[in-house]
């Protein structure tokens, strides 16, 4: 601000006074224009914004009061000092009442004249500083309001309301980046924003003003009839009604999250660079608040999920426990029940079922804490397969499902954690049986592919749609929120399987396409056979079948 010369318009019908005042002011680095009457003054006022008008009261046919009125009406930012030849206090008081900033009785020493001008600018500087401080305080209040922790939906509303109020805008909108597809989505709009796409519409990066701001991460500031304000390349057009528009990127750290836009229409004044500054700061505070709100929403969701998980998990644990306890109570009740054997078998297989659940929950919990460890050693694949088949045997029998194993014969020993791999295979088999129709077949196939072992579990269940392929490995995915309990289980099995396979430097994939009318799913686990560094191919397989 300081390096721009302050502009003063002198209005007096006495040429000599004009000239001596001009010389004085020019010496002090003011830019000075002069007029001798009201109409000349009006013309000057149109040329550019003056900081101060100094006018005599008597201007031939015109009066200094006319000049004062003209300035007050059309140029509220411009100061007015009146010079009055009648040392008439009444007259001066009237001018002050009408909005003059100061008066100067004529005749005056040139030094007095300068002092009066200087006093005016000093006062103006102080006034500006107070205004700036007030703005800072309001910005601070804004920051407090916006950063209060709350859900995203409510936050966006209050952000827009505040920005409209604080910048005296007619309309505002907020577009947030959809990270998955790298497009902006207009989330909220207030006031009439005819120039902008409606809420819900999508904007590509680089498309229009909003897209430009998103792509370049820099603000665009457009004012009608003011090319100098156009920060962006000139091809942007204001919507016909808009007087001025500010679009700023919202950034948290280095992460771009969206664009905030505000508009003013006539009869308001165009935005100033101060508005741009304020909007920019508010956008950054809002960006932080939005990313906090997203975390907040996520945490709340997780909290609900946790409660739900606990309810499901305890249900799933109590169910086998009911069978175990019931069976034992009955054995105890009648010393020699004819069907003790049957009851013991019930207790045993439900204990196994509980064990699987407890292992899943414990495994999951240590994975969450990041200390799920596996202990790899040379392990017999045949043992792993037969142990895991054993844990699901009774369930398969109940549902009359045949488990076939192909290729376990001459496979080499595998470098893995045998218990963890039993959990992998056990969970895959458990799922396969759960989803298979009664009296169908679940098959395990094993073969080698170079240095890798591939184990597949195939069922004849309803299949998994392509959309679900990724999501089934997410924790809790299958948890059914109703009472219908279509399949039981706690929704952790596949997320644990995936983790264990990854800890073995392997990968898991699923092939299933119910969309094409095909039944069944095939899960394939691929892990290195040897410890990293040592490799040997494996011999091929023969077929046999179990259960």
């Amino acid at each position, binding site marked *: 601000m300081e390096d721009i010369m302050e502009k003063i318009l002198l209005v007096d019908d006495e040429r000599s006074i004009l000239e001596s005042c001009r010389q004085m002011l020019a010496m002090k680095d003011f830019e000075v224009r002069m007029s001798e009457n009201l109409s000349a003054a009006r013309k000057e006022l149109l040329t550019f914004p003056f900081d101060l008008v100094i006018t005599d009261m008597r201007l031939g046919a015109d009066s200094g009061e006319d000049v004062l009125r003209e300035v007050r009406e059309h140029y509220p930012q411009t100061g007015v000092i009146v010079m009055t030849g009648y040392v008439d206090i009444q007259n001066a008081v009237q001018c002050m009442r009408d909005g003059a900033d100061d008066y100067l009785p004529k005749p005056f020493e040139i030094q007095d004249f300068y002092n009066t001008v200087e006093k005016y600018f000093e006062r103006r500087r102080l006034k500006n500083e107070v205004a700036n401080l007030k703005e800072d305080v309001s910005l601070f209040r804004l920051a407090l309001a916006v950063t209060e922790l709350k859900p995203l939906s409510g936050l966006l509303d209050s952000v827009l309301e505040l920005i409209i109020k604080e910048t005296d805008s007619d309309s505002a909108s907020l577009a947030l980046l959809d990270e998955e597809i790298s497009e902006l989505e207009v989330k909220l709009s207030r006031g009439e924003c005819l120039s902008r796409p409606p809420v819900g519409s999508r904007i590509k990066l680089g498309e229009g003003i909003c897209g430009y701001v998103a792509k370049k991460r820099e603000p665009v500031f457009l004012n009608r009839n003011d090319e100098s304000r156009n920060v962006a390349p000139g091809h942007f057009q204001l919507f016909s009604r808009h007087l001025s528009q500010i679009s700023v990127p919202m950034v948290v750290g280095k992460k771009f999250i969206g664009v905030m836009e505000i508009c003013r229409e006539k009869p308001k004044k165009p935005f100033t660079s101060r508005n741009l500054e304020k909007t920019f700061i508010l956008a950054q505070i809002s960006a932080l608040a939005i990313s906090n709100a997203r975390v907040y929403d996520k945490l709340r969701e997780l909290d609900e999920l946790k409660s739900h998980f606990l309810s499901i998990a305890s249900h*799933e644990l109590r169910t086998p426990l009911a069978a175990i306890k019931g069976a034992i109570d009955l054995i105890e009740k009648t010393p020699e029940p004819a069907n003790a054997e049957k009851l013991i078998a019930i207790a045993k297989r439900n204990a196994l079922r509980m064990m699987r659940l407890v292992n899943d929950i414990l495994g999951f919990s240590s994975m969450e804490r990041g200390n799920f460890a596996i202990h790899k050693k040379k392990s017999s694949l045949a043992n792993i397969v037969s142990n895991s088949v054993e844990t699901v045997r009774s369930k398969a029998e109940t549902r009359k499902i045949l488990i076939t194993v192909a290729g376990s014969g001459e496979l080499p020993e595998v470098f893995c954690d045998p218990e963890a791999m039993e959990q992998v295979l056990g969970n895959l088999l458990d799922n396969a049986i759960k989803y298979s129709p009664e009296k169908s077949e679940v098959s395990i196939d094993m073969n080698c592919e170079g240095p890798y072992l591939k184990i597949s579990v195939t069922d004849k269940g309803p299949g998994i749609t392509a959309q679900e392929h990724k999501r089934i490995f997410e924790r809790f995915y299958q948890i059914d929120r109703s009472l219908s309990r279509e399949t039981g289980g706690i929704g952790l099995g596949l997320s644990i399987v995936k983790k264990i396979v990854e800890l073995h430097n392997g990968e898991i994939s699923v092939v299933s396409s119910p969309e094409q009318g095909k039944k069944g799913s095939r899960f394939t686990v691929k892990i290195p056979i040897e410890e990293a560094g040592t490799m040997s191919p494996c011999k091929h397989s023969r077929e046999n079948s179990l259960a």
Partner: protein
Amino acid sequence: MENRKQKTLLVIDDESDVLEVLQEFLISEGYKVSLAFDGSEGIQKYVERKPDGVLLDIAMPGKNGIEVLKEIKKIDPQANVIMITAYRDAEKVVECFRFGAYDCVFKPFDLEYLKNALMARLIC
């Protein structure tokens, strides 16, 4: 107990082992027991056999226990239904009472409690 006409019970639960244990217990208590593995089968058997009492699981595939309870009560407002559940969710239990269940027995079962609950309604 032997002097009275043998009471009949219908047990509806999707867990076959739970069904089997309950069946053993209830037979040993002198009841005549029929079993159903899901809600639809349960409703059908209720209509066919008009049992004196029903033990009904809440969480089942297909029709859940609360839906089955409503249907049975519609068919026979006098039906004696005891809910059996592994949930501890008060809301669900209250809902069952609202729809006319007369007791709720939690899994794992307290067999003594179950026995008394049945006797209270069916025998006395």
